[in-house]
């Protein structure tokens, strides 16, 4: 295997890892599977298109503004929709997210049409290939994805482990009833988890937008990141990273050695294999399975 191939795997894994954080955060805290995650990621990318038009001179302002909008988006989704799903059947909550995904898909096309946008062109940024080793190069935006994914993982780990809100989120995920009795406001924690989830998804969407542009089919990548979350175990962040690496390796290998058409199906084949052998994933907690 050439080193270039390895680099491609790492870049794809970084994207999957960044996107799959969102699935894990929401599932871990509230046991809801958010199937609109890919669409929310796409909306994050389009937010960058909108802010880039407003602040084409200040890329950093545009990026920050889009990031904040991405965070708010998740809180709004929770406050408007998912808040009513507390205590409902798991299936109802999942169906609501599917419906939300369809709504977002349609709305994005109504607002931005099916045209492709390049926010990096608006900023006047080029996306040169960066040599990271002799004979191995990745695009600058891919390098940014890689760095950003590492930063987000380290940040989240510190956040979950050592901050008050992180503790609250873990508590709410472990036992909502006890957490509530100890004075943790579940609605606040859930809303925050949704905000963080869409924030990280928006980051991924924005970086991909800077790399290769935005169009309305981008949501598919979000769905393909779901197997990564499941392979690692739906409630484990570390698992999501490992799962992303496994899914990305399988996908790149299949494209390279077998058939490029396999790209859309390989993540789901990996998912099926894991579901058959070890449904709770590599690092997931086993007892959770009976609850769903």
């Amino acid at each position, binding site marked *: 295997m050439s080193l270039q191939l390895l680099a491609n795997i790492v870049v794809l894994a970084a994207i999957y890892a960044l996107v799959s954080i969102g699935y894990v955060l929401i599932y871990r805290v509230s046991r809801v599977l958010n199937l609109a995650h890919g669409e929310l990621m796409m909306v994050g990318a389009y937010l960058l298109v909108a802010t880039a038009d407003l602040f084409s001179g200040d890329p950093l302002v545009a990026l920050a503004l889009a990031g904040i909008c991405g965070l708010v988006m998740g809180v709004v989704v929770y406050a408007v929709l998912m808040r009513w799903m507390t205590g409902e059947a798991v299936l109802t909550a999942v169906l609501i997210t599917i419906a939300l995904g369809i709504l977002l898909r349609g709305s994005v*096309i109504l607002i931005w049409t099916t045209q492709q946008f390049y926010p990096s062109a608006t900023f006047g940024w080029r996306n040169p290939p960066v040599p990271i080793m002799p004979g191995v190069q990745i695009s600058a935006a891919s390098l940014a994805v890689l760095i950003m994914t590492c930063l987000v993982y380290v940040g989240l780990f510190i956040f979950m482990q050592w901050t008050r809100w992180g503790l609250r989120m873990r508590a709410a995920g472990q036992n909502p009833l006890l957490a509530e009795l100890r004075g943790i406001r579940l609605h606040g924690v859930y809303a925050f988890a949704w905000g963080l989830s869409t924030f990280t998804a928006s980051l991924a969407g924005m970086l991909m937008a800077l790399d290769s542009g935005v169009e309305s089919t981008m949501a598919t990548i979000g769905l393909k990141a779901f197997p990564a979350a499941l392979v690692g175990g739906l409630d484990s962040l570390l698992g999501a990273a490992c799962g992303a690496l496994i899914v990305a390796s399988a996908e790149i290998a299949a494209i390279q050695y077998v058939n490029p058409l396999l790209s859309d199906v390989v993540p789901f084949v990996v*998912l099926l294999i894991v579901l*058959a052998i070890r449904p709770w994933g590599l690092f997931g907690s086993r007892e959770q399975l009976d609850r769903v």
Partner: protein
Amino acid sequence: MSQRHQYAKELGGTWQRRARFAWVVAGLIALPFVATPFLLDLVNQVLLASIGALALTLLTGFAGLISLGTAGLLAAGAYAVGVLVHEANAPFWVTLPAAAILGALLGLIFGLPSLRLRGLYLAISTLGLHFVVIYLGGEYEAREILSTGIMIDPPSIGRWSLSSGRDWYFVLLSFAAFALLISVNLQRSRTGRAWRALRERDVVASAIGIDVQRFKLMAFIVSATMTAVAGALFAYFRNFVSIDAFSLYLTVQYVAMIIIGGMGSISGALLGAGFVILFPYAIEAIAGFLPARFSNAVFALDYAAFGVIMILFLLLEPAGLLGFWRRLRYSLSTRFGRPLP
């Protein structure tokens, strides 16, 4: 013995019920002779969709097994026809049974994870299988260089061929009626009772002596067979198979049918099929009055509106159209002081 006797009586019903049934049958037979071609095409689409909706109701509504594999199974049925026609120019009396057998086989495969997985995880495994089936179809299209899909001649016996809307109406009506009969019978039989027990709590079901694995797999196989046959009919109805027609959105539409109609009820499935099929046409009619920005992207408007409708039903009327109708009838009857029939 006495139970069987009562069942027969219940099926026969009172003379009022028999009269109403006769009216419905007469209406259904008369319909294609009075309806415009456009209207007839709509009715045909609803009939076709109701087969798939009934199949999903059996699985999810009765047995409580969640599946996101409808589009994959429809695609399998359609592709069974497409491949057999393309490779061997097979007639419909070969392709339809082949589609049914393929459906049953896939039902077994889709159902195997249900022996180990529950709820969400089961839904995800069917989603994974959906992508596998779609990939195989796309791969076949790519290999045979059929970038536009497979054309399929209308089914024919001797010199007569099935192509007019009116003929299709009677064919689809009989298939839908057959599916309805199967669903009603299964619901009232030992199998239906076992499925309901499974849906409520599978551990208890197994404790009272129900063979959980057998009935779970049976639900998947029956449902998948019906869905695949519907897919095969779809291929003939459209004269055309292309993998693009079987996106995840199609699955969502079928799931929406059983939710919007009313989960777990046969009449709900039929109502939902009608609603979901007619919905895009209503949106198209409305879009004519909207600014050009919206009327130029009808499909996007359709997506957005469909998402909103689904969310509204899930949040406000989880019992679906059927629940809405029951409430309406109740409030009307209490307001006007008439006893419920």
